């Protein structure tokens, strides 16, 4: 896994609350057995109209948002299904992090395991970000804060082990496998 310490980018804004995983990637794209190439499916039904033409106003289609890696979204981002295809699709579409005031549990967990950084900040700095699309910000994992172009940095909570894994490129399966002895002992004890 790639090591991530800082993500610096201009933001794009999707100020809608409760964006669910069916919007992030509709179910009909889940018949894949791989994890690559899902970027085109990201936000598909908001991004394209019924005829398959790009909706020019949707954030991912707008020229000025090209190359931007940080999404600022409304409250409770990623609610709904457990599909890990959601962070896979977002990453493949070029995004690397989302900033919200609340992020759904399973989506957050899935994101952290794929190097997509879920960031929950207070309502105040979030409101500022929403009203300033394109702001240049830095997500600083070392200090667990979002550096804003003006004012104090916005701190965020991130589970320490997940942060350690992101910053050191550690894959959690490897860590779990190292627990083999304890797992075996526990199974014996219970049997």
């Amino acid at each position, binding site marked *: 896994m790639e090591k991530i310490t800082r993500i610096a980018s201009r933001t794009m804004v999707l100020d809608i609350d*409760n964006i669910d995983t069916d919007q992030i990637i509709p179910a009909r794209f889940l018949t894949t057995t791989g994890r690559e190439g899902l970027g085109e499916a990201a936000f598909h039904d908001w991004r394209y109209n019924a005829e398959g033409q790009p909706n020019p106003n949707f954030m991912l289609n707008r020229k000025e948002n090209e190359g931007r890696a940080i999404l600022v979204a409304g409250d409770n981002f990623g609610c709904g*299904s457990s599909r890990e295809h959601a962070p896979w699709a977002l990453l493949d579409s070029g995004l690397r992090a989302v900033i919200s005031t609340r992020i759904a549990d*399973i989506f957050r967990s899935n994101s952290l395991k794929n190097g997509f950084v879920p960031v929950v900040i207070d309502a105040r700095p979030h409101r500022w970000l929403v009203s300033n699309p394109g702001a240049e910000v830095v997500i600083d994992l070392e200090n667990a804060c979002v550096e804003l172009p003006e004012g104090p940095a916005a701190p965020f909570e991130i589970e320490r082990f997940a942060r350690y894994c992101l910053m050191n490129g550690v894959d959690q399966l490897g860590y779990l496998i190292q627990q083999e002895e304890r797992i075996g002992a526990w199974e014996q004890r219970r049997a």
Partner: protein
Amino acid sequence: MPRQTLLAKVWDAHEVAPETPDTPAVLYIDLHLIHEVTTPQAFDVLRERGLPVRRPQRTLATMDHSTPTEPAATLEELDKVALPAAAGQVRAMIRNCREFGLELRGLDSPERGIVHVVGPELGATWPGHTVVCGDSHTSTHGAFGALAFGIGTTEVGHVLATQCLLQRRPGAMAVNVSGRLGPGVTAKDLVLAIIRRMGVGGGTGRVLQYRGETIRALTMEQRMTVCNMSIEAGARAGMIAPDDTTYEWLNGRPMAPQGADWDAALNRWRDLEDAGGAEFEREVDIDAGSLRPMVTYGTNPGMSAQIDEPVPSSGNPAVDKALAYMGVEPGKPLLGRGVDIVFLGSCTNSRISDLRAAAGLMRGRRVADNVRMLVVPGSQQVKREAEAEGLDKVFLAAGAQWRESGCSMCLGMNGDTVPAGSLCVSTSNRNFEGRQGPGARTVLASPLTAAAAAIRGAVADPRELMNP
């Protein structure tokens, strides 16, 4: 000292390694349910690393999401009725289970069905268990007093390889329900009311424990309906402490403990019963006695109203957007709104009692002319049971379609979809934009309300069709 919450009891009994400030707990998983959509990439990881499945007998595999509901017991038949990509996924599941030595309740199995229907039906879900699945509605199994939650595909790989997960202990929240549900008001209406009260993010980071006289009076199938939708309030899981209702359901099922093991298990389970006195991070109280049938009017499960209650007037941009998508008029009740499709199915409401309730209302009546109604039993076993009781005949005589089991129109992966702009009254659990197909409009409701909508051709109050 306050007593432990059910969550704490189950959690403590499964800690292989406790959490520290730097590392999450290693939590042992008793039962891992798998299906075709969220597993292929996990099996790939095992293959790449040369890892076996650590405890194949703790894995219960079936197929439901992209599996067709037209009869298809063989691969040849599958190719005739399934979309090519969906068929590919079904094939991958068969291959992976064979390669890793897992028993698959596959196409031709009499035990196939929606993963959250099959697990309890076989008696695989026990009180005090930890249960996970690459599926958010794993919360269903909490009805048995298990800690059951959805995980992503990477974690599916973790469980396959190590039978464990890395987890931080969530908070515990109590949902106390009192009052008796009125006639025509069901567990589905109750859980929709709970979600409305909590909001779709209100349970984030927490496990809900449903308590109170109303919950105790529910059957296991009703409890499953309630726990199933915990995730729609954002909760990690929902749980109900076991009691005699739980033990009666489990006793004699093929995967439940038998003989002396049963007595020993029962002894353990009784320690999980709710003796009161536990402290929760937060509690909400719900009065079930005043509830009426509920319907959703918007695009998340929290946007619901009692059936004759006006939906909100405009003003809030999120509500406006939802009403526009749904083609629903602000400030008026949904009652009377024309319906195109009725879907009776999904892991929320496709068990035998759900089918009985709907059939009871439909016996001797017809589905309205312009309505297409699809009835999809939750499992092949439910299907057989329903057929033995003649429920299939009731639905067919009314003009509804009677299908094989699966997720079907709940998420429209297998080809069963709602056309753009059509309004579907559905007994499933999510009314997100496009959930049942691009542009589809979903109204979530109970099996009774769905049956009433099919008969009337419009959103209708089932109590008007019920015998006094």
